[in-house]
């Protein structure tokens, strides 16, 4: 009974746009939803380093290499901001990490696609980060304070990611025939997975309604997807690339682009673990966690040694 009144007060607070902070009372389901969403978001940032890391040593010049390194380092930072935000809800980062490593946690499906050519690095920045920005900007106003604050920081840093990607694709699209082909091929392969990043359509999104009521989510999946299409199609046209969708057409009446059906079977298949790189990503994460063990152990041993010296001196 008491919880019922508290839940009503909680919802009233959200309706007044008051943010929830870590020590405030919140329904268990709200806490659980946030832990799930924020940790999945964090895992996505961490796994997101892998497809791009693949090209750091093969970047075509120093300018591109420095930018890509900085971008990948940002993704690591974003993962850390998000793990910190999740921890304010009473979980330990190490437990979340274990869920990622043993494959029980989910992360954004987009990172289970391979980066086959340098143009893919452009397509990721332009399309994947572009889609991520549209998802993330409204999250700056999400109802949970620490998550919102982490997203403000992430969004500020993310805009360079999209621009560097577009610059890469544009350079290729304006290059020779072979380069143009690379750019078009990357767009062909990343377009649909990027549209899938917004999640299932509104009628099939199981968490959406509650998340909207809790103001964790501010816009529906389909609304954001449409926004992405409307912004991105002219960007593709500007550099002479064609979006791989024969149904794509400007609809004057709606004031939006109409676009073709999404292959949801592929989406669910990748989520289930059958994407082109699911196993490889997990293997790489696990290998790098193991390879880093000695660094963590050494840092702990050094800290212990210093602490014990201090005790002796005191």
């Amino acid at each position, binding site marked *: 009974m008491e919880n019922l009144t508290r839940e009503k007060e909680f919802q009233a607070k959200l309706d007044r746009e008051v943010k929830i902070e870590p*020590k405030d009372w919140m329904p268990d389901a709200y806490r659980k939803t946030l832990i799930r969403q924020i940790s999945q978001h964090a895992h996505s940032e961490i796994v997101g380093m892998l497809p791009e890391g693949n090209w750091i040593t093969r970047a075509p010049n120093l300018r591109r290499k420095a930018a890509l390194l900085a971008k990948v380092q940002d993704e690591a930072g974003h993962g850390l901001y998000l793990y910190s935000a999740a921890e304010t809800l009473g979980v330990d980062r*190490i437990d979340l990490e274990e869920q990622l490593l043993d494959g029980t946690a989910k992360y954004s499906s987009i990172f289970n696609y391979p980066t086959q050519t340098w143009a893919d690095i452009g397509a990721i920045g332009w399309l994947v980060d572009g889609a991520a920005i549209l998802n993330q900007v409204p999250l700056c106003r999400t109802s949970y304070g620490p998550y919102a604050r982490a997203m403000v920081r992430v969004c500020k840093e993310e805009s360079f990611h999209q621009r560097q990607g577009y610059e890469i694709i544009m350079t290729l699209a304006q290059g020779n025939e072979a380069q143009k082909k690379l750019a078009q091929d990357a767009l062909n392969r990343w377009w649909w997975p990027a549209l899938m990043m917004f999640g299932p359509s509104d009628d099939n999104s199981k968490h959406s309604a509650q998340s909207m009521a809790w103001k964790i989510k501010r816009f529906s999946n389909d609304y954001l997807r449409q926004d992405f299409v409307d912004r991105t199609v002219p960007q593709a046209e500007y550099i002479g690339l064609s979006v791989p969708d024969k149904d794509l057409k400007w609809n004057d009446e709606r004031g939006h682009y109409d676009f073709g059906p999404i292959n949801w079977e592929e989406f669910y298949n990748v989520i289930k673990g059958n994407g082109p790189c699911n196993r490889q990503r997990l293997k790489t994460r696990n290998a790098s966690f193991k390879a880093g063990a000695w660094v963590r152990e050494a840092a702990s041993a050094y*800290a212990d040694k*210093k602490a014990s010296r201090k005790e002796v001196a005191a």
Partner: protein
Amino acid sequence: MSQRKDSWPLWEVFVRGKQGLHHKHAGSLHAPDAEMAIKNARDVYTRRSEGVSIWVVPSDQITASNPENKDSLFDPAESKVYRHPTFYEVPDGVKFI
């Protein structure tokens, strides 16, 4: 917050944006000791010249007011409008006040 034995302690990070400003809470991170916490904070929270000085404080050393006491702590100030300059009437013609 309970912490697992095999994880490093949590530190709260405060960054001074530039000389003359307060240190402001930036976030938190895990590190084995204070020195590493500063180094990690440099990489995590100041990659774009966001700061000129960093404080790190063990999270468990922070005592916070209880949100349940919010009303009793902060409501009394709301009725004291006379603590603000706009409470007082000064004629239009009077300057520099």
